[in-house]
């Protein structure tokens, strides 16, 4: 431990103001663990740096941020809570679950570009698509399932249409790349071939997810999934990783 009057005490101000270059900041942090004099100075000046943030002129946050943040939070919350249902977990166990989910999200890797490129937005609707279910007709609603083409090895996806609505179920799916999230789109066909965005954003847990597909599916040719920035997108920024033709 350094004696009182450590020559590095001047650095305490740079530390709390984050004025140290990366690398030096971490070194000083190590120093703080051994130097009571500098640690005391950091505690003293840290109060001022906290106060400086409170002294910023107060503005109103645009409501769009809340919408984007809460869409993602709700999606992730569903995953967390669904995983915890029925379990009399202790608090550490819950943290462990959350930690595992977060760890999965952190370890996301982009899908191979070549594999992604093999699925064109406008393609795949007509051919090479596995279809199951079908049916329909008659007076009452007949639940139907449509297998999807998934551009990830070993992954499977299916859209189930029931009287309660449509649900996309995936399994064996890799998490979206870091800093991105899966988004569901509705492809109405036509010349433009531009799918309509939905607010259904999701990630996967243990490769699985069950997502309500929002909106009216009347006239929809296919349900698509792409990975997008965390706030979602108004039009796809990448080719679909899931294409589920509804025919």
């Amino acid at each position: 431990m350094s004696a009182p009057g450590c020559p590095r005490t001047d650095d305490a101000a740079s530390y709390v103001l984050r004025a140290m270059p990366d690398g030096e900041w971490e070194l000083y942090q190590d120093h703080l663990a051994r130097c009571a004099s500098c640690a005391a100075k950091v505690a003293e000046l840290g109060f001022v740096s906290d106060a400086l943030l409170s002294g910023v002129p107060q503005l109103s946050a645009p409501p769009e941020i809340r919408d984007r943040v809460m869409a993602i939070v709700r999606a992730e919350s569903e995953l967390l809570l669904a995983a915890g249902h029925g379990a009399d977990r202790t608090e550490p166990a819950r943290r462990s679950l959350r930690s595992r989910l977060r760890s999965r999200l952190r370890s996301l890797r982009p899908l191979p570009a070549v594999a992604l490129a093999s699925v064109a937005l406008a393609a795949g609707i007509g051919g090479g698509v596995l279809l199951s279910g079908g049916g329909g007709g008659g007076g009452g609603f007949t639940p139907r399932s449509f297998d999807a083409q998934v551009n990830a090895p070993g992954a499977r996806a299916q859209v189930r249409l029931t009287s309660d609505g449509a649900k996309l179920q995936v399994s064996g799916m890799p998490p979206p790349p870091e800093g991105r999230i899966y988004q569901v789109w509705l492809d109405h066909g036509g010349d433009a071939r531009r799918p309509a965005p939905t607010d259904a954003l999701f990630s996967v847990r243990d490769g699985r997810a069950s997502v309500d597909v929002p909106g009216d599916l009347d006239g929809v040719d296919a349900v698509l999934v792409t990975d997008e920035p965390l706030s979602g997108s108004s039009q796809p920024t990448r080719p679909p990783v899931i294409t589920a033709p509804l025919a």
Partner: protein
Amino acid sequence: MRKASDHRPTELRDLADEDLMQLVRRGEAAAFEVVYERHCNAAFSVAYRMCGARVAAEDVVQEAFLSLWRSGARYDRTRGSVRTWVLGIVHNRAIDALRRSVVHDRRRASDEGIEERFEARDRTDVEVARLDEAQEIRQVLLTLPPEQCRVIELAYFGGFTQTEIASMLDTPIGTVKGRMRLGLEKMRAQLGGLREVMP
């Protein structure tokens, strides 16, 4: 503690931040939403102050709150209030963004212009008290000698390192460090009473 889904929204709003964080730690989105509502304006204010551009500030706030949601278990009430923790995360994210040159022009916000466009409305008593407190803090900053105020502003709100500041001001780095320390110590002396009332 009950799950957030067992609480009415009004009940959640009655909970202290620290109690809400226990629910957030369990993945309760409704509890997180209340935390967001309480601190989003302060968070956006800090981000805007640092980035000087609305879009960049929005990105910083979004990243910060998602980080907060995902790291709720790391909140330690013995180390400060939730508000301080939130603003610290926003500050760190904004510094990272500035140093990644995400905010290329590093424009500094004009306080008058910002307030015209995004000035907070419908203030509660707590918010009014915070406004008074914020005003006092700004006044204390302005009482510093200009050279001390400048290095603090450049570092803390501009995201510049001490090396960059020394170069910008053509001043030895030791002098820059000394000005930072003297400035903060003077502020500490003047804000001493505030420590008792800050949340």
